[in-house]
């Protein structure tokens, strides 16, 4: 580190600054917007200084939007709850299914093992719209459309591949002999899995869980097609602000701020796990 020239240091700082502004400015602008009324937002030219208002947040939380043509019911808080519920349950289900699967892929060589693992990953490459049409027909048929269970099931398409692939890399990094040593001392396969393998892979499991939570939270299209208003998460719920009386930018901004807060808090809290887990597990593969 000592042999970087001052010029290089300056260049680095500037580059970092540019990147930060590029990525953070939209978020910063949205935060500002969320404290402004629609008139203030649409003012030309826009201003950075204004008298802040909490009306957007009040409307969201109370669930009543007052527009020029009257008052409108909002389900934002319910959407937020849906987001939380859908993401959490999906990740939990994916962990229960995915961690043992990842272990199997890492430890046992079985016929078609690699193919199954890859197919699972390739689900993430496929455009969701491609699967949506057959899926929505199927869900209508078996009565799963517009149910939490149906959505959680579909969310596995997002969460499972992530968890299987990240956690698999983690299991592969653990020397099988650590497990062997435990097994030879008189413990069963299951005890070894729960007491040795899972605890040792915990950072990877945490990272995979967090990451898939964020992905699930940000999902839009599955919930848009397969869920009705009262099952929809915030990403879809934000559409409600596009009303007959125009688009209420202030509330949209406030809704965005409220909906990114949980993932932001989670990511900041678990930054260490995320970096560790992703660089250790996934890269090695």
């Amino acid at each position: 580190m000592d042999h970087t020239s001052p010029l290089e240091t300056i260049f680095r700082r500037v580059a970092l600054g540019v990147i930060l502004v590029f990525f953070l400015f939209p978020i910063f602008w949205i935060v500002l917007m969320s404290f402004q009324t629609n008139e203030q937002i649409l003012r030309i030219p826009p201003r950075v200084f204004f008298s802040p208002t909490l009306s957007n947040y009040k409307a969201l939380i109370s669930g009543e939007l007052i527009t020029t043509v009257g008052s409108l019911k909002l389900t934002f808080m319910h959407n937020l709850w849906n987001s939380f519920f859908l993401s959490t349950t999906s990740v939990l289900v994916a962990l229960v299914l995915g961690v043992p699967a990842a272990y199997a892929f890492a430890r046992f060589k079985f016929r078609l093992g690699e193919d199954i693992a890859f197919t699972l990953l390739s689900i993430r490459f496929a455009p969701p719209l491609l699967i949506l049409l057959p899926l929505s027909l199927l869900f209508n048929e078996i009565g799963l459309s517009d149910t939490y269970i149906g959505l959680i099931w579909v969310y596995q398409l997002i969460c499972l591949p992530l968890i299987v692939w990240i956690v698999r890399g983690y299991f592969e990094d653990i020397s099988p002999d650590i497990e062997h040593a435990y097994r030879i001392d008189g413990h069963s396969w299951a005890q070894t899995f729960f007491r040795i393998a899972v605890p040792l892979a915990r950072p990877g499991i945490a990272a995979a869980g967090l990451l898939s939570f964020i992905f699930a939270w940000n999902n839009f299209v599955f919930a848009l097609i397969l869920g009705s208003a009262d099952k929809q998460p915030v990403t879809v719920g934000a559409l409600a602000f596009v009303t007959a009386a125009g688009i209420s930018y202030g509330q949209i901004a406030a809704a965005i701020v409220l909906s990114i807060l949980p993932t932001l808090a989670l990511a900041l809290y678990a930054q260490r796990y995320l970096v560790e887990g992703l660089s250790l597990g996934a890269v090695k593969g």
Partner: protein
Amino acid sequence: MSTNALTISEVDKIYGTGSGSVHAVRDLTMEVAKGEIVALLGSSGCGKTSTLRMVAGFEDVSRGSISLAGRRIETLPPVRRNVAMAFEGYSLYPPLTVRDNIAFALKVARLSRSEVDGKVVGIARLLEIEDILDRYPGSISGGQQQRASLGRALIRQADLYLLDEPMGQLEPQLRAVLRGRIKHYIKERGLTAILVTHDQTEANALADRIAVMEGGVLQQFDTPAMLKERPVNLFTGTFVGEPPMNVFEAHVKGDDRQLSLTLADGFSLNYAADAFSHDVREELLKREKVVIGVRPYAVRRSAEGVPATVSTSQWLGDQTHIAADFGGHLLVLVEHDRTRLAAGEAINISIDPHNLHIFDLAGGTAISHGMELA
């Protein structure tokens, strides 16, 4: 029940299938008696670890059967085989202290806390790791981890103890001390153990019998003394013994009065016919060429011997190693006195017939050791 603790019979191990497969162990048959310490000795990659892992149950046998304490075990899961194992890579459990790692092995034995503590401290004292019992595996040296892993294996009650290179990481002094203690510990309790090593000093010091392996094949399974005196083939002959046996190809000539082994023109070892038994002579004279072997400490310098030229001479503090050119071959001899010989000096070499090991040129199997047929 027989007195055999372990019987491995006709076991093969093949990793993978098709062109990428590795035949790691070939047709291995060996028996280990109860209370015996057996060393698996061989160079790296010869199938020692694979053999242990099949006995422990971490690898399936590709063919053959394994019995332990009167039960067939080759299809049982590891937990039901009742063997203890110290792994080549230590395999300690990172989130536990050394103490807990060792005590872990006793969990299933359902002992009281104080009993467990006493045993752990006892084994730790034996292995000189008492002062690191409360450290974590990540913060101790490789040698300490290795001893912790050895302790975890030895502390248990098992029908068989499998020790995979248990002392490879230790400094020579400590190794020598621990060898003695571990042997005493095992013998005192009448335990049966298989020790994997590529260090013959260790094998000699610890084992009752040594199984020499090469290329997945068991070459010879015998006591350390027999391995030295009666190697069954050229491989064990040259592999066992330090410094290694000198070997030369030699032409055989003889009649009923004498027998000569000629290395090159003017370099002949001449013996009276009655230096060998009739059978040995007959076997040798059937062949034109043989391989002769002689241990470095059995080579003598004497006035009437065959001429050789000294190339180096080294005093090692307790013995002198002399390397000489002997009819175009390298010959090493060991003397217990401090001999001062300059490079290029002429010496004369003689080899007593009873120190000669003679091998078949083609297959390397032993024909004779001294005066007797192999």
